[in-house]
């Protein structure tokens, strides 16, 4: 029974780590993109433009968030 619990926890941990990991903003972006795709499914032109633009913005924003910030000394 304990082994089953451990396996379930490990399975859940794997998925949380896989989907969210250290980039929760990308997980949120994915949810937003899926929601938008359904919301705009009757407005193809807007969807075809907006979905790639938002995905690209999420990517650049997340990479920007993960960059190394210059130390105070080097900024002077």
């Amino acid at each position: 029974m304990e082994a089953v619990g451990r396996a379930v926890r490990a399975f859940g941990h794997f998925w949380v780590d896989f989907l969210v990991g250290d980039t929760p903003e990308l997980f949120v972006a994915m949810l937003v993109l899926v929601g938008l795709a359904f919301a705009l499914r009757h407005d193809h032109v807007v969807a075809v433009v907006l979905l790639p633009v938002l995905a690209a913005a999420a990517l650049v924003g997340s990479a920007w968030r993960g960059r190394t910030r210059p130390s105070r000394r080097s900024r002077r």
Partner: protein
Amino acid sequence: MSATIVLLLAVFGASCVESVEALTIVLASGTTRGWRSAMEGTVTALVVLGVLVGGVGVPLIHYVPIDTLRVVVGALLLVLGLSWLRKAILRASGHKAKHDEDAIYQKTSESLRTDGAPPRRRDGVGFAVAFKGVFLEGMEVVLIVISLGASQHKLGDAAAAAAAAVVVVTAAGLIVARQLSSVPENTIKTVVGIMLTSFGLFWVGEGAGVHWPGSDLAIPVLIGVFAVVTAGAVTLLKAQVEPAAPAGVPAAGADERAAS
């Protein structure tokens, strides 16, 4: 046709990246704990991964509505592709340490040596390390194979592309004898990340009912868009690296996690 080629290339590339990482661990296990246990651990993990592809992928194709499947696997591919691309951008721009296979090999070998001398016949430690290395690195490949294969009803082709990558990397690894650090892993990861993101976005749209202009031909266009965005992001972030940091070395305070 174009979607199938991109699918096969994406699976092949992703499998190459993960195979290099797994092979590093297997080589470390084999050279320090003995080849028999390392090989047994590797083969067992490959069999389990193959059963997962068949056991999960085939029912998905037959019992889940195609549009639902496309949205779900598209979302998975989108998250995976964006996170691979993010890492590749940070590594290429010098904000994150590059994946160093030599360092991983040394570290794994040293930790295995401290576990004492291996027994003459079977070695549980060597088996476990090789099994875990191959299984964990292979799980992402399994997800990609199932996602791409199931959403296009080409599970067999996707699995064959993954198997081909394992064979190619293993052969190359044996020939170059541990010089796995020379594999341009970040470049491959960038290309595959672009493909996975493009596929993911395409399937999410298709599954939700959005009609992409040109149908499958939209995939190469999306690949082009994300390639340009990635190149732009690398250029933008390169300008943000501390001037004191030598080329290729992440600046102080950089996220040093080199794990994939």
